[in-house]
């Protein structure tokens, strides 16, 4: 584990879906095209991809927080 958690700001998110294409290991889309983050935090091996995914979100709706799933 990287000690990082991906979070979506559901108000900012517009359902563009780039995140799910960039990081399908951790992000899937619901039936309406909005991202669902897999629970359990970001594995260390995917920390770089997670950072890149946060960067490419056109709505700046994705962020990486330090902490646990519940924090």
């Amino acid at each position: 584990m990287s000690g990082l958690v991906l979070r979506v700001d559901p108000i900012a998110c517009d359902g563009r879906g780039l995140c799910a294409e960039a990081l399908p290991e951790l992000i899937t889309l619901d039936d309406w095209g909005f991202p669902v983050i897999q629970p359990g935090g970001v594995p260390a091996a995917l920390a770089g991809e997670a950072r890149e995914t946060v960067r490419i979100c056109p709505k700046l709706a994705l962020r990486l927080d330090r902490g646990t799933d519940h924090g």
Partner: protein
Amino acid sequence: MIRPAPHLAAGARHAGWQEAGTLPRLLPAGFAAGPATLAEHRARYGPEPAPPRSHPDRLRLIGEVERAGLTGRGGAHFPTARKLAAVAAGPDPVVIANGTEGEPASAKDKILLARSPHLVLDGAAFAAGLIGAREAYLVVHHSVRDLVDEAVAERGRAGRVRFRVVTAADRFVAGEASAVVHWIERGVPAPLPRPPRLADQGLGGRPTLVQNVETLAHLAFIGRHGAGWFRALGTEAEPGTMLVTILGAVREPCVAEIAVGTPLQEVLGLAGGVSGPVQAVLLGGYSGHWAGPDALARPFSAAGLARLGASVGAGLIVALPTDVCGLAETARVARYLADESAGQCGPCLFGLDAVAGELARLADGHPASLATLHRWLGQVDGRGACAHPDGAVRMIASALRVFASEAEQHAQGWCCGTAGTPVLPVPPRRAR
């Protein structure tokens, strides 16, 4: 308009009512209809609680609130002392007394403000003293706005606290704490993104205490009489009293005040008792839970209802008669809740709409998929900026459990409902 319960409206003598273990506390018995004037209020409850004089005094009184065990009566039941302590730590804080009560079936906050506005003002002023605020906003339902204005005018300025009255937005989610802040700031009755917490950065960036008006009325009593007095009613784990709105298959639908933990059957007795057989009860609110008739034997408290997966929420209790279809009732409320989405978060806006549509098909006896419904409920839960989608999911999921056999009947084209009149009040649909 729902009336206060008969035992609150007349008869009870008020001499000696302030003994710790007696009801009612919040709604003045023995007064004619209409709000208590400031003079009546003081004669009945005694002078306003004294504001703390120093920082140590503040901490001591917040400690007293903690010992009292008061929790938020807006529905979430968060410990009030923890909120007070969080906001008191910051500079230039502000109090918001939340009387929005956007829940169409609930009337307890409106009745409280209409009957005992000064108790809420006492509580708001006392809370302001506890956190060092000079300003308290009163956000109230339009039906009681004039009464609250009059009460504020009667008092002038209570010590150092300036009251500002705001008419609440008449929407379901408008009562969510950050939505109240958003409404005051910009006239938008929709939740704000979090973080930041309102206790850190709320109204105008100031530390903000948002408390339900009933919670503040209880706080006014803790300020007057202390924690021991407050704890003389209710249970050890859930002390105090709470207001409930009782509707449905009861003889006299009303708002009543109960000790937390009173058995549901006894609570329905305050509304004149049941008017016929009851097949289910909706508990807490439209974001609450359906439970079967066995719930009537349970105490109305978080502990008493936990086994049913239910909670007391904002105190709504609806007894569903046997001749009304619970599935059809739920479908109507689900449509209302979907329409009341603030529309900010995709899963709530699109997901609740899809759920409401599928549920309506199910209730109408059209081909519908329970599996799809359950998948969507799972996808919507926990996916919004506020708890609106979660609450809707909770209520609908409980209906699918409690009315499981009806769902099967509907799939075959049968319905248990024979009465034409719906039980759960829902306002007419708005143009979107």
